[in-house]
């Protein structure tokens, strides 16, 4: 009985490690040049979400339509600023997969801290891994409950 229990916990642990860390197959097309014109106005980027493939050479043309705005990309640590009515370019290679927040990094008004967009490079694997781990965690709690109440 005890051995079976340990085997089940071990299995759950191994599945958890697999869900969390095993590399997933990538079927992305050849990297290409991608150009996005992003309009920044109080307090949004338009488009709010940019999707590229891993390895793509990305150019973001930030166009500010009202006050000075910036664009900072979490995870990449890159930023660019655009004056009102002007545009500024940010070029980079999308060499990190996942979902990254784009934030305005120039105080632009009241809702400035929440002026947020999204850069998605490939699939948001972290999200899928998180959902998988959440399901596995739920299963583990149920298994734990069964073992804690064996006699009923």
């Amino acid at each position, binding site marked *: 009985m005890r051995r079976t229990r340990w085997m089940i916990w071990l299995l759950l642990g191994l599945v958890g490690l697999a869900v969390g860390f095993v590399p997933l197959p990538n079927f992305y097309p050849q990297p290409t040049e991608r150009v996005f014109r992003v309009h920044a*106005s109080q*307090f*949004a*980027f*338009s488009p*709010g*979400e940019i999707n590229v493939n891993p390895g793509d050479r990305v150019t973001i043309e930030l166009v500010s339509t009202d006050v000075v705005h910036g664009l*900072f990309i*979490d*995870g990449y640590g890159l930023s660019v600023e655009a004056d009102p009515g002007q545009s500024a370019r940010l070029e980079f290679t999308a060499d990190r997969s*996942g*979902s990254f*927040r784009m*934030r305005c*990094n120039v*105080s632009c*008004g*009241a*809702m*400035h*801290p*929440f*002026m*947020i*967009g*999204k850069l998605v490079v490939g699939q*948001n694997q*972290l*999200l899928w*891994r*998180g*959902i998988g*781990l*959440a*399901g596995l*965690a*739920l299963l*583990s*709690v*149920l298994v*734990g*409950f*069964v073992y804690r*109440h064996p006699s*009923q």
Partner: protein
Amino acid sequence: MELTRFPIIKSILKSRWPQLVIFAVFLAGFVIAILAGFIGTPVGSRNFGIVFVWIAWWAILILVAVPFLGRGWCAVCPIPVVGDWMQRGKLLSPEGDSKGIGLNLRWPKRLNNIWIQNIAFTLVALFSSLILTTPLASAAILAGMLFVAFGLSLVFERRAFCRYVCPVGGFIGLYSQTAPVELRVTNKTICATCKDKPCYNGSEAGYGCPWGVSPSGLAKNTACGLCMECLRTCPNDNIAIRTRPFGADIYKPTGKRLDEAYKAFIMLGAALIYAAVLLGPWGELKLAAYQIGSRAWFGYAVAFLVFIFALLPLLFLLAVQISRLITRSGTALRKEFISHSYTLVPLGLMAWVAFSLSFVLTNASYIPISLSDPFGWGWNLFGTATLEWTPYLSAVLPVLQIGVLITGLVWSVHTGLNISANPFSRQAAMLQALPVAGFNLLVTVGLMILLL
């Protein structure tokens, strides 16, 4: 473990001086925050009132104080302290002749619940896009809380504001049930033989419980403000502060109430909405939430209220009803709805932690800037006013959030199984808990989608 067994801890907690010093510092900070809101720069991220209240204080409250100390913040909150001093006519101990002022009326019995706090928090949440970002609006709310607390202490006995009105106190009380510390009496038999009940009525050694609680009847943390008065007044040394497992109060089968259940929905719903509005990439949604009075805002307000007060509870009710049908439970639907709503307490707390991590770590670099230049007038008191905005830990933040959300899910499902396990067999308990666990999983996945 009983913390008050250690003489040094006990003497610090019994002494009034440390608490008074903290009160004084926090009250000064609170007044500066209000002043900064009224006379400082209108740019929220450069105003002490916004940065210190909604970033620094909020981080300490939701990431540390509430999860680990429950109502620990209430023990040092400066908002009711002026009212306390007026009511008592004294700054420190109750010794001496001076008498306080105030009508000392009893709080109306039918308002002896947290519905006012539920409404107050919902209103603050509804206007939060303005309050969190606009110094003037933030200062008006903070000053309003100070004046309402003061006014109520002149009319009603004890801390009516903290117990029944404070929009923050309501959710602190709810989540304090999960905290790993508690204040309880050591031996209830001693209390039964205690005639004067100085813990409730006060004595030369200390004031009667400001929260209107009799410590011998304390079964959960919700209404205990950890003010330490009972520790000072008890003539029998019968009050103890103990550590305990996380979530100890919510596993208990008794003491579950509809007002608290709804507070759990309000908090969870607000966390979901905030994650979408404040941290999402949808600019129109942000503007709708910010432009109070516009047509878009009215649409947002209706959606906000319907989601929190109807949609979320109805979906949860459906889950509870499914579990009743599966298990052929004879327990009243209302009772099961209320008791299972407590699974949302750990889930909601962790949802707020996950949301706040993003908000706080991204904006924490404004703290040293506004410390040097609290009013945004170009000062540089500590040489930190010119620091650049820097988001902290942005690369690992999503991983942290996943960990926190999964912790909340595990905790909530564990709570649901404990609640179900009371009257049922193992199989029935699992069957009963499953639909609610499914609801909690859906909420967790929804939060992951919004936050990642």
